[in-house]
């Protein structure tokens, strides 16, 4: 049944290429108006999922509804209402920024005045309007990516797909694009399906994230939910005299679920973080000279790595 509250609904969506299951029984919902981050390592099935959702590929099994339309039978309706920035920016480098946007405006049958107004509306906040007449071949990659994001929004889509929009950009350009993206998203009020393996990006932009690996959805929820579900907060202890014997003792301690020795820094997952003083006392008694003790919640990167690690262990 189609749920109007959801922009995307998939049910057991599966697509294989030969023996490889690129997307494996993917079932998930993306509510309207959210920025959804689809996280996964390279080759995990993110791009194939986008292609399936846009109706560019047919699923082998299962189905998907995008904005209430079946992606297999009503792919044209889906594409009318969506914008997409895929793996490559797909801009015509011989044409100017204005010509690129104008072409896509024509594709969506926008009248001339509306195209002109929209181009200005999109390029001004990105600081590209003054350079709209330049052929974009000489532009930096960051500027092209910004223009490509503007292109996806040209026709006022209800939903946009962004496939790793900051991939290949330097940190400054990535941060700028993220800021511009957040600005445009807030103004346009569209639903965003963003794939990335940049977890900082997901943490900053997304209200809901899904983690995929080997085509399978490992977890879905808000970043905070995932942190809470995946693991307890961690204790970081830095000091002198942390030996392997001490690490072995900690592994046997019932309070400790996991311990890692990272070049003299202990990273401990505890059953109960309020009892962390017991660990500190133990370490002091064992002769460790403690420099710093820090309690910290897992960041999304830790959650992601943990999920992927658990999945890989499960496979083995």
């Amino acid at each position, binding site marked *: 049944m189609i749920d109007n509250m959801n922009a995307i609904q998939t049910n057991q969506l599966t697509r294989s290429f030969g023996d490889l299951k690129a997307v494996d029984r993917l079932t998930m919902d993306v509510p309207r108006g959210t920025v959804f981050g689809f996280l996964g390592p390279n080759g995990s099935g993110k791009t194939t999922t986008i292609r399936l959702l846009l109706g560019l590929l047919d699923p082998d099994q299962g189905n998907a509804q995008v904005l209430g339309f079946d992606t297999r039978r009503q792919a044209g309706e889906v594409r*009318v209402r969506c914008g997409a*920035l*895929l793996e*490559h920016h797909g801009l015509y480098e011989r044409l100017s920024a204005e010509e690129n946007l104008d072409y896509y405006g024509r594709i*969506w049958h926008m009248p001339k005045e509306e195209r002109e107004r929209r181009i200005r509306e999109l390029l001004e906040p990105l600081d590209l309007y003054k350079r709209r007449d330049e052929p974009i071949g000489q532009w930096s990659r960051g500027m092209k990516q910004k223009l490509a994001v503007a292109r996806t929004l040209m026709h006022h889509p209800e939903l946009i797909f962004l496939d790793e929009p900051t991939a290949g950009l330097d940190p400054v350009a990535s941060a700028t694009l993220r800021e511009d993206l957040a600005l445009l998203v807030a103004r346009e009020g569209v639903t965003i399906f963003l794939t990335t393996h940049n977890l900082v990006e997901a943490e900053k932009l997304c209200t809901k994230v899904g983690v995929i690996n080997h085509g399978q959805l490992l977890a879905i929820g808000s970043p905070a939910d995932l942190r809470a579900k995946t693991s307890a907060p961690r204790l970081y202890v830095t000091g002198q005299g942390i030996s392997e014997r001490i690490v072995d003792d900690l592994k046997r301690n019932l309070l400790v679920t996991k311990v890692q020795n990272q070049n003299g820094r202990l990273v401990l997952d505890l059953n109960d973080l309020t009892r962390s003083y017991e660990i500190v006392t133990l370490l002091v008694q064992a002769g460790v000279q403690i420099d710093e003790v820090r309690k910290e919640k897992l960041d999304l990167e830790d959650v992601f790595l943990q999920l992927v690690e658990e999945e890989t262990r499960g496979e083995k």
Partner: protein
Amino acid sequence: MIADIATVGLKELREIFTFGDVRGRSKFSLVILIVIFGIVIPLQNGRGWVRSPINIMIWGWMPFLWVSGIVADLFAGERERHTLEALLATRLSDQSILFGKLLAAMAYGFILTWVIMLAGLITVNISYGRYYGLIFYPTSMLLAALVFSILISGLSACIGVLVSLRAGSVRQAQQMMSAGMLVLFLPFMLIQFIPVRVVRSITEMATSVSSLQIALLVAFVLLLIEGILIVIALRLFQRSKLILD
């Protein structure tokens, strides 16, 4: 759908005329073509350039060469520059994209042919008008040029689209087009090996029918071939196939 075809076609034409030949070879090549075929050769041939019926053959085959120069870029180029996937993710239908590109290539051949014909006419009149008065193409020649510039441009565009769809890169598409052109001209080269008796009977048969009938027959055969090629192209040009290439 017509509006979509026009949108795609106009964008292609803009790219072709603004940036010239395949892979950004400058628009200078366009100027050279016009100078050679619109000024130099008409100057050498004089009034015969405009009046000789033999030129129908030239006006028929020239668009083939011109279109083959740009058509390789249409799909292979888009794929190579990663612009095709973005286009496939839009609301445009497969047919709109295919016909838009096809018509742009045809229009290029057609426009170039007529620009060169006009340049030739002006050149001949400026150079020889004072001896012969106003020189103009015969009506039959104009009509033949009109029909065959469209049909031959269409043939070249159809072959080019198929080649461009199958080729992995622009360079490969160009190489395949060059090889294809050799195959097309092969029958003309093989004429010398046909027994004289056979050639004579074909010539007798050809002279027994009017030139109009021959032109109509050739036009019909070209239309038929183009129809078949378009059907094949439509079967090949499908999003789900292209996206995996």
